[in-house]
C-alpha cells in the first residue's frame, strides 16, 4: 500500500482534494466468484452497467466491453439481472494461477 504521509504533507482539515482517488484501492482481490461475460449473447441493454454497485462494468458509447476485474467484488448482480444470461458466475479459484 502507499507510503503514509507525515502531518506536514497533508491538506488541512482532513480534506481529500484528489477526487475519486479511491480508484487506487483495487477491491478485485475480494472476489470469491467471478462474472464471466459472453459477448455473443449480449444485447447491450446496459442493465448490468446500471446496477453494478462497484461500477465495474465497462461500456463505451452504449456498447458493452467487459468487466473490470480490478474492482469487481463478485456479487453476482450482473449475472442475475442479465436478460440473456450473457454473464455467468464462476468460482474465482478457477482463474488463479
Amino acid at each position, binding site marked *: 500500500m502507499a507510503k503514509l504521509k507525515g502531518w506536514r504533507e497533508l491538506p488541512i482539515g482532513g480534506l481529500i482534494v484528489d477526487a475519486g482517488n*479511491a*480508484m487506487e484501492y483495487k477491491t478485485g482481490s475480494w472476489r470469491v466468484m467471478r462474472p464471466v461475460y459472453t459477448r455473443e449473447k449480449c444485447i447491450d441493454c446496459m442493465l448490468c452497467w446500471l446496477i453494478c*454497485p462497484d461500477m465495474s462494468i465497462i461500456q463505451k458509447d452504449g456498447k458493452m466491453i467487459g468487466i473490470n476485474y480490478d474492482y469487481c467484488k463478485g456479487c*453476482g448482480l450482473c449475472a442475475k439481472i442479465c436478460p440473456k444470461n450473457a454473464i455467468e458466475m464462476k468460482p474465482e479459484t478457477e482463474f488463479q494461477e
Partner: protein
Amino acid sequence: MPLNLVNFAKVHKEDLLTSGHRLCPGCAAPMIAKLALFVAENLGYDVVVANATGCLEVSTTIFPFTAWKVPWIHNAFENVAATISGVETAYRVLRRKGRIKPDKEIKFIAFAGDGGTYDIGLQSLSGAVERGHDFLYILYDNEGYMNTGNQRSGSTPPGSYTTTAPVGKKIPGKLQLKKNIVEIMAGHENIYAATAAIGEFMDYMNKVEKALKFKGPSFIAVLSPCIRFWRIPDDSALDITKLAVETKYWPLYEVDRGVYRITKKPRQFKPIKEFIEAQGRFRTLLKHPMASEIIDELQEYVDRRWERLLILEEATKDKPITK
C-alpha cells in the same frame, strides 16, 4: 423525461461515485447513490452531496481515499439535513451576490441511513423541511444500524434479529412496529415524499427526477437491503426488494404536497411470510413459539396499510394541500 438507459450510457461522462469504495459486495447503498447521480447528470445538474455517518459515508471515504467525484461533506450523524441547509443557503446567497456564476444549476442531495433519519436525525430533517430548503433527501433504509453491527433502529421491523433487540427465548426481538417515515415526512405538507425500492430502479429514478425538479424539500425512502445483516445472498438485493413490494411490505407510492399516488400496483400479491422466510434475519423468529402470531399480525398490518393507501389515493386525488 424518464432516463433512456442506452442513450444515457452513450453520453455518460464519468462515474461520479467511483469503484474502489469498500461497501460490501452486492450492497444496495452504492446503487442508490449511483442512480441518483446518474439522474442528476442526465438532467444536466451539478450536484453537491452531504452524507450522514453510516455505511455509505464511512466506506466511500476512508482517508486518504474518496470515491466521490462531486463536492461532498460529512459532518456528523444526526445533522445531514442541517448541514445541507447551510450549503444550500450559501449557494442561494452567493449566487445572488454574484460570487458564484449562475450558469450551471447545482442540486443538493443528502444521503442518510435509517439510523441518521428515523432516530437521531429526525429533528434536523424536520427542521430543514419546515424551512423549505430546496434539497433532496435520500434515505437508504437497511432497517438497522448496520455500519456498527446490526443494532435496532426505529426502522427495524418486528421479529428481525438485531443485536440490541435480539430474538431470544423470552422476547421475540423488537416489539414495536417500524416507524412510517414517509407519512411523517408527508405531514410536513410542503414536501414531495416517496418510497422507492432498489429492485424497481426505473420507478426510483423517475422519482429522483421528479424530486430534483421539485422546488423545495423532497424525500425518498429507498428500501436498501443489507446483504450481511439481512443474511441474504450477495446477488439478491434487487429481488428481495421486489418481493417487499409484492408482499405489500414496502408499497411504492408518492405524496406530492398531500396528493397520494401509488406508483406500482402489483397484479398478484404475495403473502408476507414469503418475504420473511427469504431472509436469514428472521430465522430465529421463525423458530420462536410466537412466530406465527407475529407473522399474522404483520400480514394484517400490511393489508390494512395498503387499504388505507388506496383510500388516501382516492381521497386526495387532484387535491394538493399546498401549492
